[in-house]
């Protein structure tokens, strides 16, 4: 476990490049991610979902590398639509529209894209640095955790996500418990002999597969929801790119805005580490700091101030690396994409957490290396294929959904070679659609499903190890602190929402 950051990188590099095809997979992942990121309505999560089943046949490091490349490409590509169309390709770039689109209207679209992409690279690389150097340290501490600390970490992850991602906390909790129920179907994780909620069906003995759940909830459910908007409408107006886009902003420009690049990236990293907050909040906070502390012309924010684009794009890409830290060190995903990456690990029979650093350091290193290379590749590919991506903005969803539906079904089938899983995927999709329609958030549901085995097995093993004395929990101060943080994480967003509600009254 004394493996440091550089040793992890060396091991990862060796493992990842043992097969030369990895570079092709990374390029493919970036292109797919950019494709899904550029087209409004498609997200990097959807792209990961579609390719997740096919990574089953790959070496775990290579498969995870592919998924991470999609993640990086998806977040970075969305700025093109945000700037030229005033519609973010993915929600991560909402804040980029505030200044990016006005810049494009002023004939500065090329400048906005160039600066935005450089900010994406800057934020992405700074978050790589944080990931590579912080993650091994956190894992070292987490390795000393007992059952109770793990149980409380699971509670913390769930509490924060329920608190933050739900406008209505009751609905967030309900969604999380539905996830708990879905995870408890099948063999009991501790005894391994008792079947729960099988309802006499042999198909339920093995439980609900993670792939069936995530594809059903986040792909089919999302497509059914977006189909609601399938109607006649005017075509979006794209501002054309006329001039050549500079590959790098000038050194003088970078020097002038270095503080904004750095501070926004650091905000993104911190926001990424906290579960459930995500890119939009990260870029909004970074935008506010840029407006308040950095720019000499704060009144021009929202009218085409380049600092706005820098803040938004540095922060939303920096969230990527930050979000990977709790996922890989503690097994707690902070958002949908890291949850899907976690599902990728689980599909390969691996469980992210401190033990992964001890038992599979080359895999952890592969993830780090893939993340670093993906950031550089993203930068090169997006410039190389810029004309194509601008053309993609005119693509209509009605041409993509049929293909996505067929690929999602095929992906789920490939995982088990059983059509029953496709049926279950549809059922999950319909349930998700009905729940989302009434304001139930889906991230707590998926997190309930992912965290339940950690919660249950650690609680029960903790009880057995401590002679069935629940009060023994208080003998573990770190567990008590984590539980207190969970309560704070749950209550704080509620209090903030209540306060702002009463202010608005």
């Amino acid at each position, binding site marked *: 476990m004394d493996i440091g950051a550089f040793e992890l990188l060396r091991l990862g590099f060796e493992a990842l490049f043992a097969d030369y095809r990895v570079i092709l997979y990374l390029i493919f992942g970036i292109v797919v991610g950019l494709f899904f990121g550029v087209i409004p309505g498609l997200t990097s999560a959807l792209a990961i979902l579609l390719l997740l089943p*096919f990574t089953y*046949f790959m070496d775990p490091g290579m498969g995870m590398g592919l998924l991470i490349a999609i993640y990086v490409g998806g977040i970075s590509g969305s700025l093109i639509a945000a700037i030229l169309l005033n519609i973010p390709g993915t929600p991560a770039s909402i804040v980029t529209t505030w200044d990016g689109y006005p810049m494009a209207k002023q004939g500065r679209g090329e400048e906005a894209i160039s600066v935005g992409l450089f900010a994406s690279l800057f934020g992405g690389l700074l978050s790589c640095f944080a990931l590579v150097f912080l993650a091994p340290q956190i894992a070292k501490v987490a390795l000393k955790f007992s059952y109770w600390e793990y149980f409380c970490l699971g509670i913390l992850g769930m509490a924060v996500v329920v608190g933050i991602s739900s406008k*209505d906390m*009751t*609905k967030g*909790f*309900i969604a999380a*418990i*539905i996830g*708990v*129920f879905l995870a*408890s179907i099948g063999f*009991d994780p*501790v*005894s391994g*002999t*008792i079947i*729960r*909620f099988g*309802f006499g069906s042999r198909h339920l003995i093995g439980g609900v597969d993670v792939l069936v759940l995530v594809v059903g909830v986040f792909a*089919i459910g999302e*497509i*059914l*929801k977006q*189909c*609601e908007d*399938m*109607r*006649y*409408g005017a075509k979006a107006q794209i501002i054309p790119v006329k001039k050549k886009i500079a590959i790098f902003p000038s050194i003088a420009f970078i020097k002038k805005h270095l503080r904004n690049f750095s501070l926004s990236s650091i905000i993104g990293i911190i926001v990424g580490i906290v579960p459930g907050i995500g890119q939009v909040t990260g870029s909004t906070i970074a935008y506010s700091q840029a407006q308040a502390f950095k720019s000499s012309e704060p009144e021009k924010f929202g009218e085409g101030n380049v600092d706005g684009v820098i803040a938004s794009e540095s922060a939303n890409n920096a969230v990527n690396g930050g979000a990977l830290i709790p996922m890989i060190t503690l097994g707690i995903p902070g958002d949908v994409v890291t949850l899907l990456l976690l599902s990728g690990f689980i599909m390969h029979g691996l469980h992210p957490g401190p033990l992964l650093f001890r038992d599979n350091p080359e895999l952890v290193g592969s993830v780090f290396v893939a993340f670093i290379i993906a950031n550089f590749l993203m930068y090169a590919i997006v410039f190389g294929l810029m004309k194509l991506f601008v053309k993609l903005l005119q693509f*209509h969803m*009605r*041409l993509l*959904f*049929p*293909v996505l*539906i*067929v*690929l999602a*079904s*095929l992906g789920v*089938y*490939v995982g088990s*070679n059983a*059509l029953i899983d*496709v*049926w279950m995927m*549809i059922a999950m999709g*319909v349930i998700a*659609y009905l729940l989302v*329609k*009434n304001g139930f958030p889906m991230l707590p549901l998926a997190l309930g499903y992912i965290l339940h085995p950690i919660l*249950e097995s650690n*609680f*029960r*093993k903790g*009880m*057995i190890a401590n002679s*069935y004395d629940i009060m023994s929990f208080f003998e573990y101060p770190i567990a008590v602190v984590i539980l207190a943080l969970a309560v704070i994480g749950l209550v704080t967003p509620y209090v903030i929402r209540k306060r702002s509600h009463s202010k608005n009254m």
Partner: protein
Amino acid sequence: MAWRRDIVYGVVIAIFGLILLYATSQIPLLGDVKPVAGARYYLYPWFLLLFLLGLHLVFQGMSKKKQAVKEEGNEKGEGGKSQDWFIPLPTLFTLALLLLYVTLIPLLGYQLMTFLILWGLFTGYFLFCQKEGPSFLIRQKKAFIIAAVKYAVASAIVVALIQLIFGTILDVRLPG
């Protein structure tokens, strides 16, 4: 009218919570460990909480109704933003084709069914996106036929690509 949906969902969730509590009580208690660390007891608090949250949602719906009545002045609180209870036609259409697709794969084979679902969805979505809606099919027959042929070709190309990439290159076992 958001209150009505909260009440209905709340009732369904509360009943579901009760069913799960009953199903949990049927989980056998085996092994040497005490029940408190067994396969059953850990689940009780979760499903009890689900039941209580369902009830809370019902009460939340009722208080929303009171507020709606107060704001809108009519007894039923039916005014305000309309509540889309109904599943829109494009969503129902997608779901129906998806169900048909999975049902008929074992009978008609993967390639044919994939072609049919793609063609059906492309063509259906095309109609939904027309100014006249699905009545475009009757009003502009010729334009519809041209679009339908175009989508048939596109569907055939997608099926061929899937067969090539997944069936041949990746050697994946396709359904059917």
